[in-house]
């Protein structure tokens, strides 16, 4: 009987599912804290849990119809008119029991294609889609019951529902028009136009080879061109939509016909202000349609309570359609509406709501004081907000939605941190936000807790309680480190210490520039934070470090596909220094060509597909008259270079250094041979399984590689406070962060390093050969950027944190460390204190981010075997929380295998 990887590890003294610091109880340990949401929310949540990700053509139909009526119009006006028509025609949908309303489209989990960005990924299946749509007419919807697993995903077609991108369901009746609309954008979409021009970049063939061999995960400009940023709700909250239109009209009069010293784009201000007015009119009509629908519902409703609620919804919507909100619930409804409007304008994941505890505080304070609302009612609204945010889907290709995002849309909330004056920013509303994270534990919004030494102890204790519910949040981010990064990177754009304090997390873990704005309510002034920067996690997307290293070892050729990716280096690589230098050289080449090509994609995006609505919300577009595409945002140096597989690569370099260069136990050729032969294991592709757990030795194995494999597995590993491995991390980070700053974005600003994995460690691992740290071909990399590879962190959490904090985290936009802890290790108030002390210790060492999965691995294994019993189980992966049943098996297995700390 062939051995499994797990058995081989055990023989070598390693262990997947390693238990550190003790032994987990034999019995399955449930979560220590279980809270419940308000009954109204639980009822709405039941609908969510039973709903499928659904899509239709309403928005793209009206957008396309309007857009093509305006040939030769000024591009920004054409875009605004198309947006206005699309928003105006969205069918309103209000569910009984909801207090706040509006959604992306006319389903609970609605999203829609945007063929003006990219149509290729579903047009590639045109013929089969169409034929299947025709032949499926007679099938029964009863087949739906087959889809209990996978949460709300629609992984395959059933009945009259077609699966698109393995996630979204679309009615067969919509398929013909889906394809007709897509055809109208062929050759005109950002994807197609971008490709036409990026081909003019010298070495474009290298970019193609990089993408085909999965050295890089995906393109930037047409996939999710915006997001990973913080929304700004200030202008509508301060002026109301009519007020903004008034400002824009006045500005039009001021700038019409004037260049004002800017011969390039000064004249554009007139068109931009006009576009702002048009876009707002579209959003106002959308709100009005919902208000009318609520009125219609109220008129036919027999239940008095429900009738009143519909009437109240209508009144609120009619008011905020035009005016500054008067009450907490009106303000909350308004920011929900703005959030959804921004998401409907473009394909976006990672639009973070930001520090809404401070944004909404003026209304909270005044309503509580006047007795217009109770804290319990606020909590209920915050619970509904979580449901609204979790219901947000983003329509994109399977590679993006599945391979990278795991279906997550990253509408993160930030709490904590400091105010404009450097004092703790925590307020009573933020306690309720954190509490709602526990009472209505759902993947969205992730809660990012900006850790600062001034945070109140009871606030941290509440955070620990919420973590103990098993939801995977709050995550802790180091406020000081983030402020330093802000000053380092945005100082040249005018970032001050005071303004740096307004930062927040955009997306899952992207430190994003923000600013303070003075909000006035009933004669009182409040300074509220909000996003002031362009999208982040744009530019050079995930480059797999282990894959680049593999290409160094094999002279530029991807052995898996046979593609020549880079020019052969033809070096003997006789020293570790020479190896490391060549690794950097290939990295530079990859970054260079990816930056150039993605700059072109984004440039095409900004010419025809610029954000109009989102621009009017972001400082300082309304003041300057320039939108995002003309550097209207206050901070524009937001593009980045993203790495993936950091720890797997560091471990591999450490093993090479130790076994090939320092100890000279194996020759370079022997090492190559072992990697090519997957250490004597079958390949993951051969057995059709890509998880760590499932790897099998070849039946006829000669044990040729066993000794070497053992030694590779036992070579120095990151995560043990062992300088041998950690020094390589330190050297890499110092070089990588500095190099990233030398790359220029299309906005002529320096880029920076971004170190998050999202779900790429699974997908990119599957395209990578075995690595010399002992990891096998096709299996996942280590999670995040600083999480240890499963089972390799032997010396406890503080040693892991020492390794992680060896470099200066303020050089990078982020770093990411996830730790799995058994619930019994932090039981009771004393356990909570230990957890907080662990966080505090890491933050004091200079770590940027740490987050915990508080879960018994036995629960995860049971959930994998019996997913039908775990529809609401959530786990933390990289920088996000997701339902267990909605993530792929590779990533599930990595989580199960990860070291479980039995004591802290």
């Amino acid at each position, binding site marked *: 009987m062939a051995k499994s990887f797990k058995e081989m590890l055990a023989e070598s003294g390693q262990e997947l599912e390693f238990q550190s610091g003790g032994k987990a109880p034999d019995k399955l340990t449930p979560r220590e804290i279980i809270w419940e949401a308000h009954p109204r929310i639980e009822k709405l949540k039941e*609908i969510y849990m*039973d*709903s*499928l*990700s*659904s*899509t*239709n*053509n*309403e928005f793209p*139909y009206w957008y396309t*119809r309007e857009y093509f*009526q305006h040939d030769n119009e000024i591009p920004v006006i054409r875009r605004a008119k198309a947006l206005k028509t699309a928003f*105006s*025609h*969205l*069918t*309103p*949908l209000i*569910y*009984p029991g909801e207090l706040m309303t509006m959604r992306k489209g*006319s*389903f*609970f*989990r609605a999203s829609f294609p945007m063929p003006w960005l990219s149509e290729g990924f579903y047009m590639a299946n045109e013929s089969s889609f169409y034929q299947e*749509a*025709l032949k499926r007419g007679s099938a029964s*919807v009863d087949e*739906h019951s087959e889809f209990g697993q996978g949460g*709300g995903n*629609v992984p395959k077609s*059933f*009945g*009259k*529902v077609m699966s698109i991108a393995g996630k979204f*369901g*679309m*009615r067969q*009746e*919509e*398929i*013909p*028009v889906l394809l*007709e*609309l897509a055809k109208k954008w062929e050759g005109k979409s950002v994807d197609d136009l971008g490709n036409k021009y990026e081909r003019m970049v010298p070495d474009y063939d290298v970019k193609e080879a990089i993408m085909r061999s999965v050295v890089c995960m995906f393109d930037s400009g047409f996939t999710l061109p915006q997001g990973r940023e913080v929304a700004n709700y200030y202008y509508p909250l301060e002026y109301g939509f009519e007020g903004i239109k008034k400002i824009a009209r006045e500005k039009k009069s001021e700038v019409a016909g004037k260049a004002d010293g800017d011969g390039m784009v000064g004249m554009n201000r007139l068109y931009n202000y006009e576009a702002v007015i048009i876009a707002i009119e579209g959003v106002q009509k959308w709100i009005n*349609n919902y208000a009318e629908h609520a009125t219609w519902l109220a008129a036919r409703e027999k239940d008095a309570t429900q009738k009143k609620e519909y009437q109240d919804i209508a009144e609120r919507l009619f008011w905020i359609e035009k005016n500054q909100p008067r009450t907490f619930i009106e303000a909350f409804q308004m920011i929900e509406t703005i959030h959804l409007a921004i998401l409907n304008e473009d394909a976006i994941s990672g639009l973070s709501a930001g520090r809404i505890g401070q944004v909404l505080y003026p209304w909270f304070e005044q309503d509580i004081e006047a007795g217009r609302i109770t804290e319990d009612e606020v909590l209920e609204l915050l619970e509904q907000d979580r449901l609204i945010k979790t219901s947000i889907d983003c329509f994109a290709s399977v590679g993006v939605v599945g391979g990278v995002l795991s279906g997550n849309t990253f509408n993160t909330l930030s709490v904590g941190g400091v105010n404009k004056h450097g004092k703790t920013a925590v307020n009573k509303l933020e306690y309720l936000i954190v509490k709602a994270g526990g009472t209505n534990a759902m993947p969205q919004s992730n809660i990012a807790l900006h850790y600062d030494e001034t945070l109140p102890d009871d606030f941290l204790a509440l955070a620990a309680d919420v973590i103990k519910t098993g939801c995977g949040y709050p995550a802790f981010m180091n406020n000081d480190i983030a402020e330093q990064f802000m000053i380092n990177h945005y100082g040249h754009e005018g970032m001050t210490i005071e303004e740096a304090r307004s930062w927040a997390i955009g997306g899952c873990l992207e430190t994003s520039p923000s600013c303070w704005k003075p909000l006035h309510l009933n004669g009182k002034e409040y300074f509220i934070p909000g996003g002031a920067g362009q999208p982040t996690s744009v530019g050079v997307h995930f480059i797999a470090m282990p894959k680049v290293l593999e290409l160094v070892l094999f002279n530029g050729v991807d052995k898996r596909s046979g593609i020549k990716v880079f020019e052969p280096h033809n070096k003997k690589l006789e020293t570790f220094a020479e190896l490391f230098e060549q690794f950097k050289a290939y990295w530079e080449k990859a970054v260079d060509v990816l930056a150039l090509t993605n700059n072109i994609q984004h440039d095409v995006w900004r010419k025809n597909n610029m954000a109009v609505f989102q621009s009017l919300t972001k400082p300082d577009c309304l003041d300057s008259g320039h939108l995002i595409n003309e550097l209207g945002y206050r901070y524009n140096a937001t593009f980045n270079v993203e790495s993936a597989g950091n720890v797997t690569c560091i471990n591999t370099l450490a093993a090479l250094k130790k076994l090939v260069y320092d100890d000279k136990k194996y020759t370079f050729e022997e090492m190559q041979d072992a990697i090519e032969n997957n250490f004597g294991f079958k390949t993951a592709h051969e057995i059709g399984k890509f998880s760590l757990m499932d790897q099998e030795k070849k039946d006829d194995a000669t044990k040729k590689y066993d000794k070497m494999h053992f030694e590779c597995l036992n070579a120095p590993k990151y995560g043990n406070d062992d300088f041998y491995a950690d020094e390589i991390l330190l050297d890499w980070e110092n070089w990588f962060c500095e190099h990233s700053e030398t790359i220029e974005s299309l906005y002529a600003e320096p880029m920076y390093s971004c170190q998050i994995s999202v779900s790429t460690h699974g997908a990119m691992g599957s395209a990578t050969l075995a690595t010399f740290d002992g990891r096998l071909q096709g299996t996942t990399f280590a999670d995040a950027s600083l999480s240890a590879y499963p089972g390799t962190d032997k010396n406890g959490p503080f040693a892991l944190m020492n390794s992680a904090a060896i470099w200066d985290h303020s050089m990078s936009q982020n770093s990411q460390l996830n730790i799995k802890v058994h619930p019994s290790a932090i039981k009771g108030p004393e356990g909570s204190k230990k957890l907080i002390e662990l966080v505090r210790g890491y933050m004091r060492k200079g770590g940027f981010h740490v987050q915990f999965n508080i879960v018994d691995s036995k629960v995860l294994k049971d959930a994998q075997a019996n997913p039908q019993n775990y529809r609401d189980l959530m786990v933390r992966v990289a920088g996000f929380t997701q339902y267990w049943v909605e993530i792929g098996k590779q990533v599930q297995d990595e989580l199960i295998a990860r070291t479980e700390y039995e004591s802290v």
Partner: protein
Amino acid sequence: MEEKIYRNSLNFVPVDVAKGIDRSTGKRVNADDIDPNYERMPKCMHCKNFTLNEEKIGLGICSMMGKEHLAYPDMAAITCEGYDEK
């Protein structure tokens, strides 16, 4: 012939592409089931301005305000200013 099913009815609150809620009873229903309390929902297929394309299944022409545009019979027309019921 008019399909008096939930997904064509104003008595239906869609949850997803396959199912929703019967507004009258509050019960979960399949989108393609017959709705006993059917109320016609405005859709292009019921509009005087819409002409079905006999050659291309699922497509048609909207001739609202004198111009011709691509259209499709199943699209909701609740918010359409040119909807004119047959």
